[in-house]
């Protein structure tokens, strides 16, 4: 009974009602995003009706792609091998160059910000340019063939491997480095005996990961004349031989998945 009375008294107490936080910010954000999307649709001439109209075409295309022309494999096998070679050589060159770049970026090894900030800036600039664009540039410089493709992949690999590696470098255990500094080691000795053992597995893993990406990238570099299997997309699509295109896509898919699988297994064992 007593408790009930108490409850009634509590009920009569003027209830606390904090002010609801304003929602203007949310509405403004939503309006901004809508505006962005609407503007983008206008700018790129994208309309739903166009998608609906294009839909039958897509189905036609898919129908013409099947069944794939299996015999076309003979024609593209050599190009696929070239693709893998390009990825392998490009990744290797990139990885080699990435080592000094990564060391120069690591704030815990290079004490002077006058060195590591500019190098990092340069690295970030490299990473803004997509690999296919690099390839187009190198084709303009060196002419058509796998070589510009390899250079493009190398530059791209430097950007990626160096970034991943220097971030890992900055996370290493400083203990061994301190001990070696205390023992009077110079920078090179510290790197060889203190840094390398801590980082080599990571570095190998990053390189393999970049190799996976590069295989995918190398498969399309041919579109700008930079070698590999990508060239055959233009050949087959230009002659409306969609069943051959389907064969290229399936073959690439299979190779990429196999390489991914092997590489992932290797990386799991490394770390």
């Amino acid at each position, binding site marked *: 009974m007593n*408790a*009930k009375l108490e*409850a009634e008294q*509590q009920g009569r107490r003027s*209830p*606390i*009602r*904090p*002010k*609801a*936080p304003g929602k203007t910010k949310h509405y403004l954000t939503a309006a901004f995003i809508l505006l962005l999307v609407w503007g983008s649709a206008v700018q790129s001439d994208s309309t739903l009706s166009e998608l609906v109209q294009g839909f039958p075409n897509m189905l036609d295309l898919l129908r013409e792609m099947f069944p794939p022309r299996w015999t076309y494999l003979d024609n593209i096998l050599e190009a696929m091998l070239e693709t893998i070679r390009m990825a392998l050589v490009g990744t290797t060159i990139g990885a080699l160059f990435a080592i000094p770049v990564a060391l120069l970026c690591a704030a815990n090894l290079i004490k002077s910000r006058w060195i590591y900030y500019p190098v990092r800036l340069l690295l970030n600039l490299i990473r803004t340019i997509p690999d296919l664009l690099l390839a187009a540039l190198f084709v303009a410089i060196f002419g058509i063939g796998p070589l510009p493709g390899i250079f493009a992949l190398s530059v791209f690999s430097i950007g990626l491997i160096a970034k991943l590696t220097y971030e890992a470098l900055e996370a290493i255990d400083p203990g061994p480095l301190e001990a070696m500094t205390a023992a009077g080691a110079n920078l090179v000795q510290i790197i060889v005996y203190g840094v390398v053992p801590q980082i080599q597995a990571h570095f190998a893993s990053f390189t393999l990961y970049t190799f996976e990406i590069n295989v995918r990238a190398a498969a399309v570099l041919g579109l700008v004349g930079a070698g590999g299997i990508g060239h055959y997309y233009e050949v087959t699509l230009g002659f409306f031989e969609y069943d051959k295109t389907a064969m290229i896509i399936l073959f690439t898919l299979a190779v990429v998945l196999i390489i991914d699988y092997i590489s992932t297994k290797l990386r799991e064992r490394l770390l």
Partner: protein
Amino acid sequence: MIEIRNVSKTYANGTKGLNHINLTIGQGEFVAIVGLSGAGKSTLLRSMNRLHDITEGEIIIGGKSITAAKGRNLRMIRRDIGMIFQSFNLVKRTSVLRNVLAGRVGYHSTLRTVVGRFPKQDVELAFQALDRVNIAEKAYSRADELSGGQQQRVAIARVLAQEAKIILADEPVASLDPLTTKQVMDDLKRINLESGITTIVNLHFIDLARQYATRIIGLRAGEVVFDGPVSEATDEKFAEIYGRPLGKEELLEEAAV
């Protein structure tokens, strides 16, 4: 009224969680279920709203069998049973108010709630619920900005907003310190007295059980080994439930020191 008729639960690996349990819990009771961890307290509580399925027997809630209920009927029975958890189970990054309002979803169609808008009366109800656990001023704070005790009170408010007729509390104070433990238990007790909500609490500490409950049920290895009013729950009886003399870890006051 809750009727538990000959309920057993056998897990897939063959272990028996509950063994032929028969209980009747009346309207407005405050029941504490005690026992060692692994005795089946949580399993029993969670079979009452069918978060766990039983393998044998039947549980009747307010005249309807929850064991046989499906789909909409099951949800309607669950709507009348509020649950409070050891880890509060709030959505940490949403506001306290929205967490309380989540207790109202059972009253509205899916379509209406999916938009995320609740009727004015619901918001009012949520505020009243928060008021009753003295935390209304935090309505617009993010749940994870609150202390553990405050979060558990938000969970209680969620159950109040749900207008549940039964409250199941599964170790509600196990992650709280002694001071907030008292506040949360006081809240549960007050609500039990004010609104006559049947309250069933799993507790590890027997002094808490004695202090707040009107009836104590002791479980041991999935069987009811004690069932009676607090006055009958002597230290000897507890020793029987736990299978050994009472230790410090069964007493909140002692464990706190």
